[in-house]
């Protein structure tokens, strides 16, 4: 890098020295300058050669470190930020997808961990819950609370898989599939909870 910069400086030096050595007519210089300046393509080619060398001398790693350092120094909020944008259907469904995902993970982990630690078997704890004698409507709501995250995350997951293959990115389709997935998730949830 340094060698190449030196190379260019050297060539420019030679160029100027040659000019100074040979120039006894100021008009020739003017002619030359005009010639160079009129040659826009030449200038355009020279510009990145002169400037981008310096700005691009940072590696990607250095650049990312600088990015994080700046974020830290300025105490910038994290990305993706949750409260900085006004809510839209698209972003709300996106965060709901993540929320249901985290919730279901916590749920299945809690089941696995608790059932291996607790002294009694599943039937015992189910009897305990039954003994609390929830009304039928509360039981229905409980089932919905279990099924809806599964249904929504699964359906919206299919939407994500479609995006992964490159389909469904235009705004109209995004909203259409979003509403469709949301509506269908409630229909499926009601159906399964009624079983």
């Amino acid at each position, binding site marked *: *890098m340094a060698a*190449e910069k030196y190379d260019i400086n050297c*060539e*420019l030096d*030679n*160029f100027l020295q*040659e*000019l100074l050595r*040979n120039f*006894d*007519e100021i008009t*020739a210089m003017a*002619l*030359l300058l005009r*010639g160079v300046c009129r040659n826009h393509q*030449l200038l355009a*080619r*020279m510009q*990145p050669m002169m400037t981008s060398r310096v700005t*691009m*001398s*940072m*590696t*990607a*790693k250095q650049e990312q470190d600088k990015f*994080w350092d700046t974020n830290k120094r300025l105490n910038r909020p*994290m*990305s*993706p930020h949750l409260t900085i944008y006004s809510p839209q259907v698209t972003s709300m469904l996106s965060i709901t997808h*993540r929320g249901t*995902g*985290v919730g*279901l*993970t916590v749920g*299945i*982990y809690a*089941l*696995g*961990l*608790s*059932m*291996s*630690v607790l002294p009694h*078997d*599943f*039937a015992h704890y*189910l009897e305990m*819950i*039954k003994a609390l004698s929830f009304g039928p409507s509360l*039981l229905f709501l409980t*089932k919905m609370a*279990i099924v809806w995250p*599964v249904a929504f995350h*699964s359906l919206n*997951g*299919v939407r*994500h*898989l479609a995006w*992964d293959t490159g389909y469904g990115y235009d705004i109209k389709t995004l909203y259409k599939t979003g509403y469709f997935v949301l509506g269908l998730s409630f229909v499926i949830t009601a159906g399964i909870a009624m*079983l």
Partner: protein
Amino acid sequence: MAMNILRSRALLTSPRLMTSAFLKSPYQANYPAMLNTLHTTHNNHTAGLLPSKHWNAERVLSIGLIGIIPAAFLIQNPALDYALAASLVLHGHWGMEQVFLDYVHGETMSKVANASLFAISALSFAGLCYFNYNDVGLTKAVMMLWSS
């Protein structure tokens, strides 16, 4: 005098300017040093699958879950209970890794978060296997809740 300068290669600042390669691309042919500074994404992964393979594995698992979940409830088979436990835990684990990547910053905190996640995921999977082996199993448990 003027003709002298016009004929001189110095007028062009560099003989490189006249090569067709330079005119075609100022970056590729003449400046191999620039190839070292291509702005690629910083490679965060230190072990395990290549990121691209990992991405593919995540999609395969996601598509698999669409089949495994209904199959496990319709067929009611112990093997499917284990498949369900394994795939749900792995899917959840990878999902949580992604969440941590977004929201847990700093080298130390990321390491702590990921190590803890790995431990909890492993314990949960063990717990679910235990539940499948010693208790009614995942799908039967859900069916029991539904019939209550």
